[in-house]
């Protein structure tokens, strides 16, 4: 790998490095993906007050804990970015893996939530994507979000080893922007799916 790094690191026709601009464009497109989904959910929710009765079956403590985990992982990735800027690559590497750990904990909690609904023995607690439209939204929104979490964890793992050698430290900022966005999506999914009864 070149020590000089890719052009996206330094070239800037728009006032900011091209790589970062690319991530902002990606996030703008993600606003349409999650925004469209959330907009539809809100409309259906307003039109179907009985969905509040379905939301009772979500586990607020689990959702709240996952919000705490993602907020904390956001702190870790911004601290990794800070360390990378100061060329403290070992510290940046450490914080990136703390962030990945946060993503892992988040997914474990989701697994617990999913399995308690998908494989419940009690028919009343059995909730699948086909149970009704509320649960279709629930699994689509949280599943799509979980896929984003997995994607972010994989990318962070991939860049972490280069970073430790001092290669491409700017990538910490780029994956950080993405991770914060994933955090923001959850900030909205939590009240929509768990709190609003």
């Amino acid at each position, binding site marked *: 790998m070149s020590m000089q790094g890719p052009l996206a690191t330094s070239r800037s026709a728009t006032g900011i490095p091209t790589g970062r601009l690319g991530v902002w464009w990606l996030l703008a497109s993600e*606003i349409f993906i999650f925004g469209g989904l959330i907009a539809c959910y809100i409309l259906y929710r307003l039109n179907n007050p009985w969905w509040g009765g379905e939301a009772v079956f979500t586990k607020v403590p689990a959702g709240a804990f996952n919000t705490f985990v993602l907020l904390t992982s956001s702190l870790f990735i911004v601290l990794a970015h800070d360390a990378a800027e100061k060329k403290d690559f070992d510290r940046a590497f450490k914080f990136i893996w703390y962030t990945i750990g946060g993503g892992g904990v988040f997914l474990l909690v989701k697994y617990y939530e999913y399995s308690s609904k998908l494989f419940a023995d009690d028919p009343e607690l059995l909730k699948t994507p086909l149970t009704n439209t509320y649960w279709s939204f629930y699994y689509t929104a949280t599943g799509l979000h979980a896929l984003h979490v997995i994607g972010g964890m994989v990318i962070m793992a991939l860049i972490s080893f280069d970073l430790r050698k001092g290669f491409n430290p700017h990538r910490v900022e780029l994956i950080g922007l993405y991770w914060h966005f994933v955090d923001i999506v959850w900030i909205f999914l939590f009240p929509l799916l768990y709190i609003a009864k």
Partner: protein
Amino acid sequence: MAGAHAHPNYVKIWVLLLVLLVVSIIGPELGIPWLTLVTAFGIALVKTYYVAAYFMHLNFEKKYIWSLLIMATVLVGVFFFGVASDIMKTDGQNWQDCIANKTCAEQQRYFVIDGDGQLR
């Protein structure tokens, strides 16, 4: 990072976000509808601002990035109001949503799928 700027105290912002999280959980427990809206969804907006402004460094970013993100959000709003009538209303001056007002079943009586799988 978005240009040279002083780093905010990230831990302080994280603590603030956690305090907001606690309020957003406790508020709706009181069962007051307007308070639920403010504490659950209003605070979600505040949390989003703090994450975007300080963790994503939008406060130190070029202004056109704000415009890009706001434009995307506004277009989602256009989509929201564009499809709202289809979801929220069951009829209008020139149309009727037969699924929502449950008249489709009656209409479907006139259609039969024959043995060849053709709709007649």
